[in-house]
């Protein structure tokens, strides 16, 4: 269980997150949604203790700020929006970085660590790439690889910042299906920042809609993905269509009739 209570973050003197409170039950998927600048990434970074904040973030009743980095990395794996991939690092070595928090001080990875990484690479379909250098991988392969590194951490909480931003539509669905399968397989709690509202509604159990750093709505996809709320928050005309039991969120283009009316 992750409990976020009255969290407030200021960057450069300006509030970016304002008194956000939300609870995420274990093994569930919470998607943070909202327009650009709403504070999705900052809230995720707060969960990873990467930014200073007021309020409380408790992970199983333990304050994440009070944990040592090594301890937190065993509980929370974070996939940033733009991970860094040293071009000359081998894929296998990159995934082994995920074992850092499990290594004994000043010790090299053991055969157990290598086995765990090999299993993760196999699960992600990347084992044949183990000795390739990162500079030779495609965007989709990199996306899976950074997920593999996070899984190698064996942390029960997975934070994903726009995990599919670099992928085409087909690969986006594949990647999120994979996250969902892994969540169920490994009993993970997933918190992700997602731009695509349709995908967020299809995969997450709960959505938290942010606007200007404030929590505007939280609940199931049907509770949050409502035309009037989204239209106001995104400042555009939004259609929410139910199709085969799933919600599809689209924006409506300003047609020539609208332009005429403005004139």
């Amino acid at each position, binding site marked *: 269980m992750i409990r976020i209570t009255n969290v407030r973050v200021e960057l450069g003197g300006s509030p970016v997150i304002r008194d956000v409170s939300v609870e995420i039950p274990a093994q569930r998927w919470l998607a943070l949604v909202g327009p650009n600048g709403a504070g999705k990434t900052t809230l995720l970074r707060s969960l990873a203790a*990467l930014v200073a904040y007021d309020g409380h973030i408790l992970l199983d009743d333990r304050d994440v700020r009070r944990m040592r980095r090594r301890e*937190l*990395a065993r509980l929370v*794996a974070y996939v940033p929006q733009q991970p*860094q991939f040293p071009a000359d690092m081998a894929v296998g070595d990159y995934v082994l970085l995920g074992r*850092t*928090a499990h290594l004994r001080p000043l010790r090299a990875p053991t055969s157990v660590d290598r086995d765990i990484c090999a299993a993760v*690479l196999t699960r992600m379909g990347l084992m044949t790439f183990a*000795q390739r250098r990162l500079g030779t991988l495609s965007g989709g392969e990199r996306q899976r690889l950074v997920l593999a590194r996070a899984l190698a951490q064996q942390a029960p909480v997975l934070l994903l910042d726009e995990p599919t931003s670099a992928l085409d539509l087909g690969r986006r669905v594949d990647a999120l299906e994979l996250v969902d399968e892994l969540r169920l397989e490994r009993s993970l709690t997933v918190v992700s920042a997602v731009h695509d509202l349709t995908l967020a509604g299809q995969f997450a159990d709960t959505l938290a809609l942010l606007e200007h750093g404030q929590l505007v709505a939280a609940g199931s996809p049907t509770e949050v993905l409502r035309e009037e709320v989204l239209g106001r928050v995104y400042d555009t005309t939004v259609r929410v269509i139910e199709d085969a039991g799933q919600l599809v969120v689209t924006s409506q283009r300003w047609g020539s009739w609208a332009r005429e009316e403005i004139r």
Partner: protein
Amino acid sequence: MTASLPVRRQRRSATPTAATGKGSRQVGLLPALAGAFALLVVAVAIGLSVGAAGLPLGTVWRAVANHIPFVPHPKVARVDDAIVWQIRAPRVVLAAIVGAMLAGGGATYQGVFRNPLADPYLLGVAAGGGLGATAIIVSGGSTDLLPIAAFAGAVIAVALTYALGSTARWDTGVGSPAVGNISILLAGVAVAALFTAMQTYLQQQHVTTIQEVYGWILGQLTLASWSDVGMVTPYIAVAAVVLVACAGRLDVLRVGEEEASTLGIDPARLRLILIAAATLGTAAAVAVSGLIGFVGIIVPHTVRLTTSASYRVLLPVSMVAGAAFLILADVAARTVQAPAEIPLGVVTAMLGAPFFLYVLRSRRAREALS
């Protein structure tokens, strides 16, 4: 579970294929270390054998054997023994220790600052050591004090850089005010400029000693003795152990400080430990050898390009290769214009400058700098 990631020593046999990646060029720690040690053995043999006295190889080896416990001690003329053991051997050993430290320090700074062009003098060791040495030379102080003053100057300069750099606050724009590499680097530039200006001022005020000051600045091992070896070994040994022990952590830093912290590293603490160890060792090296440039850049990059970019391999192998390189450079320094000696810093720079340009133009440097 049957699958496992291959350990590094198995990689050399891996054939680069479409699956393994074209040019993956990863050499494991053991083969790379074996190669570097082989080079070191050859360098030591050349270093002990080559000199003005023109001693036969057999005499050299008998003189060496005379000082190795638990082996038969053959007869050697006292003068030959003195040439080999009192003149050449300490010089070779000191060159090895200094070369290892400079190469290890360079590799460490390149990892900590994620900058392929960083060298062990980056944070003011050279400027501080130079000021300390110059102060002793121009004041006519005992030459025994010169290494102590150079060591103290180097340590003070880096401590000042770190203190000023780490108290500067930067708003990263994405999080809380962070202490960053940039502020430390900029503080290093400022401190080095200040110390260099003070050294230049002292130099200009005492022009009669300018040749002596330049002799020290350009680096030399002419007066190397076993007492020098004994003096620097504890510092450099401690530094080397810390750097090699932290090599795996440097690999984690390669993905950036923020990602490294989410993987379980405390980047600021690691940086402090590595800078402290590298400074301690480099300052000790500078104290006995003066300022020998380029070793910290040439050697790690050569190792990186020929073995592996992983610091678990790069750091220890660079130290062994650095030892071999400086022994050979010193042989060149004392033989090319014998009986005169070329300053060691000139030899390493003449080899290093073209290599430096090559590194600057390399794809890897561009990737790392981008």
